[in-house]
């Protein structure tokens, strides 16, 4: 009887877990529009007011939203646009153009994209324009309504704004800001960028036409608020079909939040990076371990997830090297110690390696020079060592100067974890004195 009951429990669990996975994955992986705004209420108000002024009163504006990666710039603007579009008169009138610096890599492509998003491809047809400005003003003219008195307000959103400043002459930016200053069409230009020094990148004539309005998103919340965010991100919403299950789940989340080891993990994570994207990655890793046999997340899941997040990837690569390659790295380490980080070449490393091997090292056979060269080239392929200048024909391969891209603590840590490391190699790593 009990097995049947647990089986039916499992079936119910599986269905709910699938729902839970769907909701949480959408929250963590995809920018779901239901997410709350944490601590950016002031900036949000500022932005929505600006947009309303353009959309409803026909005022032209420009603003830059500046903040580090993952601080919520795109989320902020999407929220604002959603709220704006809910107003009756706005949704019929206002047009939006979304440009992205990664996609429109020069002004010609940008112009075609603007034409496409304004649905003016038929109007433009095969016309040939003399300049960018002509083309843009033609497009905006075409948006004017029948009586030629007013025209539809257009909101331009430029993502990765700093990439647009690298275009030739910054034509697009100049024209957009120019139109926003002159009273032809009500235009709102909103730039999103992660660079704090964005104003230095603008040309003088572009900068003077910009309104210098900036909204900063600086992740300015403290650790208690971070904990609250953690709880909110993991909790199920009220609309979840099974009240009992969602209550149990949310209770579990509350317990996790009060657990000391979880707090430590979150504190470590918070100290490294405040932004919500890294929190989402941690939660996603912990969510992977939730299955029908393990339906509720535990503190151990979060600790495992934290360990996975904070792995040293170079140490992992060193773990997979062969003994000969490890010996070469140790030889380079000694050369760096003796010559204080001066670049070395293969011949120097080989001589150092020979000194070790001839010192009655039984575990490492004295390999031929070409075999050692192949191991050296493998290290170069893995980008653990790098040539100082590009390979040229003027110098032979063995004499080209290289640099080691690992530091001593990384090497020693990696050696400790290295499987089946011969003892004399390990001893050699700690000291290179030849009388040992």
């Amino acid at each position, binding site marked *: 009887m009990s097995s049947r009951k647990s089986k039916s429990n499992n079936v119910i669990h599986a269905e709910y877990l699938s729902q839970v*996975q769907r909701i949480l994955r959408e929250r963590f992986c995809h920018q779901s529009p239901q997410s709350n705004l944490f601590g950016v209420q002031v900036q949000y108000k500022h932005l929505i007011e600006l947009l309303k002024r353009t959309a409803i009163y026909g005022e032209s504006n420009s603003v830059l939203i500046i903040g580090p990666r993952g601080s919520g710039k795109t989320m902020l603007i999407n929220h604002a646009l959603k709220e704006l579009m809910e107003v009756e008169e706005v949704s019929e009138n206002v047009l939006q153009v979304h440009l992205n610096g990664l*996609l429109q890599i020069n002004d010609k492509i940008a112009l075609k994209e603007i034409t496409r998003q304004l649905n003016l491809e038929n109007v433009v047809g095969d016309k040939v324009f003399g300049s960018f400005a002509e083309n843009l003003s033609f497009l905006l003219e075409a948006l004017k309504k029948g009586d030629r008195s007013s025209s539809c307000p257009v909101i331009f959103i430029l993502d990765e704004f700093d990439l647009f400043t690298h275009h030739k002459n910054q034509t697009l930016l100049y024209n957009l800001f120019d139109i926003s200053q002159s009273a032809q069409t009500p235009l709102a230009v909103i730039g999103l960028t992660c660079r704090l020094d964005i104003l230095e990148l603008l040309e003088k004539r572009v900068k003077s036409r910009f309104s210098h309005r900036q909204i900063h998103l600086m992740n300015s919340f403290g650790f208690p608020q971070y904990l609250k965010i953690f709880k909110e991100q993991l909790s199920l919403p009220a609309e979840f079909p099974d009240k009992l299950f969602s209550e149990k789940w949310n209770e579990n989340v509350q317990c996790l939040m009060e657990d000391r080891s979880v707090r430590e993990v979150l504190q470590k994570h918070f100290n490294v990076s405040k932004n919500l994207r890294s929190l989402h990655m941690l939660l996603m890793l912990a969510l992977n371990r939730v299955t029908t046999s393990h339906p509720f997340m535990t503190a151990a899941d979060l600790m495992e997830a934290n360990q996975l997040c904070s792995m040293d990837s170079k140490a992992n690569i060193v773990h*997979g090297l062969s*003994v000969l390659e490890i010996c070469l790295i140790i030889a380079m380490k000694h050369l760096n110690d003796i010559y204080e980080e001066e670049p070395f070449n293969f011949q120097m490393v080989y001589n150092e390696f020979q000194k070790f091997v001839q010192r009655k090292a039984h575990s490492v056979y004295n390999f031929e020079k070409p075999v050692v060269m*192949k191991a050296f080239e493998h290290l170069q392929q893995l980008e653990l060592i790098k040539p100082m200048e590009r390979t040229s024909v003027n110098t032979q391969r063995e004499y080209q100067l290289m640099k080691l891209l690992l530091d001593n603590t990384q090497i020693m840590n990696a050696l400790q974890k290295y499987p089946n490391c011969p003892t004399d190699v390990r001893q050699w790593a700690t000291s290179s004195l030849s009388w040992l």
Partner: protein
Amino acid sequence: MPHLENMVLCREPQVSTLQALFGERHHFSFPSIFIYGHTASGKTYVTQTLLKTLELPHVFVNCVECFTSRLLLEQILNKLNHLCSSEDGCSTQVTCETFNDFVRLFKQVTKAESLKDQTVYIVLDKAEYLRDMEANLLPGFLRLQELTDRNVTVLFLSEIVWEKFRPNTGCFEPFVLYFPDYSIGNLQKILSHDHPPEYSADFYAAYINILLGVFYTVCRDLKELRYLAVLNFPKYCEPVVKGEANERDTRKLWRNIEPHLKRAMQTVYLREISSSQWEKLQKDDTDPAQLKGLSAYTHVELPYYSKFILIAAYLASYNPARTDKRFFLKHHGKIKKTNFLKKHEKITSLVTLQLLTLVGHDDQLDGPKYKCTVSLEFIRAIARTVNFDIIKYLYDFL
């Protein structure tokens, strides 16, 4: 999945992590996943096998093959078209020049019925070459889910760690997954898996043990070890075939194969000779020293005077100037006076062969200066062919 475990050995934790990440078909997954690990650690094989077995819609592209952005983007779109219209036969080839067009066309293609509501996976193998292509490709692919507003996940497979990929101004951080290297036990298990049916598994396992004993300290690359295992197995079986020993005579078999494996390390492992030459060598049992290797000095056939010019250049490059008197006063008759023009031609041809290089500026008044860039072994081989004992003339060997 037991079927999957038989196909993919020693990679169970990675398979389960990937399966958990993929989730159910219609769930969202992380927008970009970065998988790194040593070469031949199973990244490509596991990803392909998993995607095929679970029958998830995916596109597999190699960044070495598609080395420009146009080739890469067009191949992804064409393969996607193929996926969703498999009944139509050969559909039209798509042209796509920029990433902007790619995003637009991608949105169109994924509207198809068969791809709706499912996560589409794009796998980019050898992703380290993306860094050398156009600068917007890597950040663009990392954010593809956001840019196209579709359920798509991009997987990057690479040997290089993620820190070396990150662009200067940052980017969307992918989920980083590590494929650990195989331990010696795992290597033994995998290599023993492809034993030929004529011999017993224990016999082959003993052979693999010996092979790993010789090569493990030098190389842990599974592909190299498999290649060496296949090449040297006939020699290992020779005593059994000839009837001199039976399968269990490990000491005799070891004594037979060990010098052979050591020789393999100096030749086949270094790709000095090709595998067909090696197999011939095993059959005829000739001395490998007589074999014409693939390396440089056996293939360069220089005319007689060019050899002397090269030797003279080597001596000039490596002996300090003050010792010239000591070496050359008595041997004025050795090098015959040739035509001046011919000498210049020969020098230019040596520069083209990259045995000499030009040093210094063009505007030097006392003629161009050259430097000799060959190694000692090379010049000794050349000197031997003209019966000139170069060692006697080198300062460092006094």
